[in-house]
């Protein structure tokens, strides 16, 4: 179909505590360029760990115990993420892979304006840019996510939850990365706002053509928006298939349990039937 962007082989993460927690076990995964991969599973199954682990964002006591992650850059170069040293990793981050974090209130520095937090990214990764250029880039980003450049001077708490989430998305977009990992970007939000943000993400993806890993445990939502869905349970990917296949023909027992756990919105009363 499409060519691969990220190849994950036999990837395991252990929290080296007593007793050790094997949060991600031998995950093998191919991420295709431009697709939306939904990652679902009950809470605590290792979704966040996997997503963070891919770009080695986990702090000790987390240890990657096996596997490899290879990033196929659009320039044609293959980057072996697990071989990078700290400085290379720092450069790699955000430039190639960016993230939208779970709680936007907590993901933004409460004492800095959103403008300065956005500029930060350029300052560090694009040292060549002038101050004016950075300003302009920030204004453009805020425009894109419909927060509006006039909000540049606002502090996070002055924005609504939805706006904050959009600022996070703007930040993730800043360097036009090839992969965006979104960890439950909408769970804290209202359905209406959630919908609006999803619409925006889809629009931006069409524009910029990045790949999305979308994490949530809201299966109905995932079924709607993803190309492919991976179902995780206790650190393992138990099923990985297209959304339709998952919906119509779930193979794993656990997937089936999940799918039978939400009532119908329309049609006859009762749990969803496939």
């Amino acid at each position: 179909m499409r060519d691969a962007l990220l190849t994950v082989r036999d990837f395991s993460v252990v929290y080296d505590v007593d007793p050790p927690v094997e949060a991600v076990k031998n995950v093998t995964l191919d991420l295709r360029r431009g697709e939306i991969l939904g990652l679902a599973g009950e809470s605590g199954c290792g979704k966040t760990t996997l997503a963070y682990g891919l770009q080695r964002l986990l702090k000790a006591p987390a240890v990657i115990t096996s596997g490899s992650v290879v990033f196929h850059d659009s320039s044609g170069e293959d980057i072996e993420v697990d071989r990078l040293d700290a400085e290379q990793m720092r450069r790699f981050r955000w430039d190639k892979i960016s993230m939208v974090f779970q709680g936007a209130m907590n993901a933004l520095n409460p004492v800095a304006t959103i403008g300065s937090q956005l500029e930060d990214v350029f300052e560090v990764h694009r040292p060549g840019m002038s101050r004016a250029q950075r300003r302009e880039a920030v204004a453009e980003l805020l425009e894109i996510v419909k927060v509006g450049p006039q909000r540049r001077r606002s502090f996070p708490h002055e924005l609504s939850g939805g706006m904050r989430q959009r600022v996070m998305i703007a930040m993730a977009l800043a360097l036009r990365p090839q992969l965006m990992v979104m960890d439950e970007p909408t769970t804290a939000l209202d359905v209406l706002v959630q919908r609006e943000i999803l619409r925006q993400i889809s629009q931006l993806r069409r524009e910029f053509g990045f790949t999305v890993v979308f994490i949530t445990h809201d299966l109905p939502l995932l079924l709607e928006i993803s190309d492919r869905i991976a179902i995780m349970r206790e650190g393992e990917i138990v099923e990985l298939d297209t959304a339709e296949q998952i919906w119509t023909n779930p193979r794993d027992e656990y997937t089936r349990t999940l799918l039978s756990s939400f009532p119908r919105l329309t049609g006859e009363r009762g749990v969803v039937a496939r």
Partner: protein
Amino acid sequence: MTAVQPRPPVEDAIEVGTTATTVVKGHSRVPWRFLAGRATFYLFTLWAAITINFFLPRMMKGDAVDQYLSRNRNVSPEAADALRSLLGLDTDKSLLQQYVEYWGLLLRGDLGVSLLHGLRPVTEVIGQALPWTVGLVGFATIVSFAIGTIGGAIVGWRRGSRLDGLIPLTTFLGTIPYFWLGLLAIALFSVNLGWFPIGKAYGVGMTPEWSGEFIGQVIHHGALPAATIVLASLGGWMLGMRNMMLTVLDEDYVTVAQAKGMPTSRVLWRYAARNAVLPQIQSFALSIGFIVGGTIVMEMVFSYPGVGKLLLDATNAKDYALMQGVFLVITLSVLVANILADVAYAFLDPRTRQTEG
């Protein structure tokens, strides 16, 4: 207070965002009501403190003349009455009358004369001592705060390293009695090693002037007391900052900063420490307020001129005017420090600007 705003019907629910109930926007940026409330609050505190400060000393046993006689044994006890009228203590006004008069004088900036200091105006007496207290202790407090906070940030950041040992060490230094520390410091550095003078603010025969020599002297003389104050108070700042750092380091925005590829120093100072320092500001303000009163022991041990000894002596000598004067300075500085803390906090933490409660 504004009236209930009629809410216009919302066309597009999505546009509204999460707050389905619109907060009335465009209210004045300056929260006058809040400020007025704070001002009333502070004025009340000031009034109450001054009133207490007026009545408390007058509940003490003994009076200033007896004290004067015991200090000046060459003065004939037979002259007690003459002295009483000389010192203005022969009035038979009621306490309430005196209180009202005190306020009258206070509002005119007249703090009376100090019996203990040759009947000089209290303003002059305090004016001579205050700069030294504020200078030395203020400086030491700032240094201690700065070192403690920066150190605490680093210790918190490099948790688990050998630096962790600094916390118990500084705590220990903070718990040993200050005078002990001071006396040992003098014994070691002044008497045995001779590196520093034994005390005083500057050398004998010097008169204050803006010369290099004088400033050098002031620094030389102030170094040991300042250093002991810093040592004794460092622990609190360091521990506070370190604990806040540990809390802040687990916040998402620190992880986000790292995910954004920020260099370590930037994450440490701009993200983590910048947030962790906020609660320190409050304590700092309070400690600034207490500088004025809290240094009696240092002044005794290091023969340093200052307000603390002034207060102690005034209390012992029943020098009401001077006591009240020093109280006033302490009260004012605590209040001013509190106001400054309010302002600084609002300035440093944008969140409080809105949701002050």
